[in-house]
Every structure is written in structure tokens, then in C-alpha cells.
């Protein structure tokens, strides 16, 4: 009985240790042409809770975000901030930690209420290596219409960083 209790406790601890979150976001931004544009976007992003570092590059057309540990930020919030500044958020390269689950033959990772669905263009050798459970991934998030953001994203896994 004691042993069962310890196992249950360990299980709970191991699950609670999985802090599903965004770690790093390189967000592509279209339409940003000037220093005040970059300044405004940088300032807007910095106002969001959960960011450790923000860097905006006009020449790359990207916002580079490093997120704080235990953050609750979502990619949708980040892309909405880009839109509020008058620009268009496009593809993103994101590092995420979360629980990988298989749902109706599709792998997906749930992070802070958002669902990242692994698309069929992920290299097959990566797909074959996937197992349910905690995972850290570097993924390419495909562009969605700015007006139709709903927290569900199609991703191509670039690299499995930790499983």
C-alpha cells in the first residue's frame, strides 16, 4: 500500500514537473520598415508578462523572443501584439516543452491552452521516433491568417531536443 502511495506521488511529481510552455520564439513579421515600427513592436512585446528578452530586427523582419521560465504566454498573444502594431505575423520558429500525445492518428503537443499539431511534412524518421510523454521540440509553426487565430497551430518538427 505504502509502495503504491509512493509510486502515485512520484507519478504526480513527474507530471507536475512538465511545465508546458514556450521557451523561445523567432517570429517572422511582414510590413515592418522603420525604426519606430521596430521600437513600437519591441515596446509592445516587452509589456507582456513572461518574456525574458526581446530583440527586433528590421533587416531580418523578425522578433526574437526568449521566454521566462514558468511563463504563461501563448503564440496567439504574441501574434496579436504584432497585429496591434499594424504588421502581419507570419511563420515562426518555436521551441516548446509539453506533453506529446497522439490524438486520432495525429501527434500533438498542448502548451498553455494551445495545440500544436504535427503536420505530415515532418520528416518520417522524426515521426517514427516520437513517444507519448514530456518532450522538448524545436518546431516550425506555419503561418495562419491574422484574423483567424484560434490557438491551434500546424507545426513541422525541426528537431527533437529532449524526449
Amino acid at each position: 500500500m505504502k509502495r503504491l502511495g509512493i509510486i502515485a506521488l512520484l507519478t504526480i511529481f513527474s507530471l507536475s514537473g512538465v511545465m508546458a510552455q514556450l521557451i523561445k520564439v523567432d517570429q517572422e513579421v511582414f510590413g515592418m520598415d522603420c525604426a519606430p515600427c521596430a521600437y513600437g513592436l519591441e515596446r509592445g512585446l516587452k509589456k507582456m508578462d513572461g518574456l525574458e528578452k526581446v530583440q527586433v530586427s528590421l533587416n531580418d523582419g523578425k522578433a526574437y523572443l526568449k521566454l521566462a521560465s514558468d511563463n504563461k504566454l501563448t503564440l496567439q498573444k504574441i501574434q496579436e501584439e504584432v497585429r496591434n502594431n499594424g504588421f502581419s505575423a507570419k511563420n515562426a520558429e518555436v521551441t516548446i516543452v509539453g506533453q506529446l500525445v497522439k490524438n486520432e492518428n495525429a501527434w500533438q503537443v498542448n502548451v498553455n491552452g494551445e495545440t500544436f499539431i504535427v503536420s505530415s511534412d515532418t520528416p518520417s524518421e522524426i515521426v517514427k521516433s516520437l513517444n507519448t510523454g514530456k518532450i522538448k521540440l524545436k518546431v516550425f509553426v506555419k503561418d495562419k491568417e491574422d484574423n483567424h487565430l484560434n490557438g491551434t497551430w500546424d507545426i513541422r518538427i525541426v528537431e527533437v531536443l529532449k524526449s
Partner: protein
Amino acid sequence: MKRTAFLILLTVTAISKVSAQGHGPLYGLQTPTLAKGGFDFNAAAMSLATEDDQSFMLRYIWSYGVTEDLQINITTPTMVNRLSEAPRTRGNNNMPANGDIEASVWYRFFSNAFGVGKRFESTAILSVSTPTEETRSGINVSNSIHGAISTGYASRTWYAWVGGGYQYYFEEGNEQLGDLPYASLVIGYRPNIFMGDYPKPDWRVFVESLAEFPGTSTSEGQLIPIDQRGKKVMIGPSFLGLYGAWGISFGALFPLYQDITQGPKEEYRLSMNISYWL
């Protein structure tokens, strides 16, 4: 009527917190609007020289981005020296050249960001003005309304905007200033040397042109047979430097063509504008 317009202006001021410029050309119509919730303050020094005299004016604009596509602005002048025969003209792209207090709404009704640093967009402007003087070039001056539309392309290297507008003055004491249709064309370029990435300073140069076609004024109910103000086409360079939350632009316009048949001819316009994004 003046009091009503002034009350509208005050109401707009109270609701808003202000407008933007400083991001594009100095004289010509442009398209960019502020970010949602963004504030901007501009202070400009403007001068217009004719053969006989020269005006000096300081002007301030406060702007506020209601949404990323809708911006409200209010601009107020400090007249240092007025021209006795002032041309009817717009000043900088969102400022009257004469001593008007003006409130305006900018609506970016089309925007297509199609690449890194690239976008194509169109903006409509509607403004109401009230004068700070009783007469202008000997004619009673009244409140006016102004509408304009502009469309353009922006990228990290090239910029181009084309636009047109119309200002209509209401009748005041049986007199009425003629209307003012105008058009502008701006081409901008950022040389490679200024292609440093943010937060490095960001400079660009523009060639701006402005065509104005002032209508005939009315005095004591009669059209003035020979209007003192003729059609003009002005052209000149302007420069815009941006660094973080600050922007500075300066430039001049010179007449390429003017058909003034009576009164002094215009020689040049100078302007310098400082912007701060709050």
C-alpha cells in the same frame, strides 16, 4: 459655428491623446498609422516665403492610435509671423499651413504586408479646422473641412506615396475663401549606408512634390474676378532620421510652376519636424 467647431475639437482632444507623422514624408500625403494604443507627439517649425514677406509658425500635433488602422490627431499652431497675403495651402502632410486648429481622423482602409519590410497600403483622412485669425488675405476666414486619400508602398529601401485632397471653407459674413484641391507625389529611398539594423539610426531621403489648385474666393457675395492665389506645383527634397522613439525630418519645397496673376509669388517653403513616440 466657430464655437461649435471649437467644442468638437476640445471633445476630440479630451477623448484622444493624439497623432503621428514623422514616419514618412514631410509635405506629401502618406499612409502609416500608429500602433493600437500608441501615442505620438510632433513639433514642427514651418516657414513660407514670398517675394514680399515670410511667415513663421510653430505647430504641435498629438496623435493616438485607436486601433492599428485608426488614428486621431489634433494640431495647434503658434503663429510667429503671418503673411498679409497668405496662400491657401496645406502645410506638412497632416498640418495646415495657416493658423488653423485642426482635428483629424486617419483610417488605413487597406493594408497588405507582403514581405519583410514591405507593405502596400491606403489611408483616408478627414479633418475639421477652425481658424485663429479673423481674415486671411483680406477675406473672412471660417471653419473648414478637409478630406484626403493616399496610397503607397513602403519597403526597407524604396518608398512611394501618391495622394490627393480637398479643403472646403464655409462662408463667414458673406465672404468665403475658395476651396483647395491638391495632390502630392513622394518618392523615398534609403541608401545602403543607412541600412543598419534597429536600434541603429535610420535615415532616408525623399523627393516630394505638391500641386495645388486653389479656387476663387467670394467677397461680399461676389466671386473675386482675379484671384490672388494661382495654381502651383512645388518640388523639393526632405530627409527623415529615426532613432528609437525619436524622429527628425526637414526639407524644402520650391516652385516648379506657379500662375499667380496678382500678388507676390511664392519663393520657398521650409519645414522641420521632431517626433516622439510616447
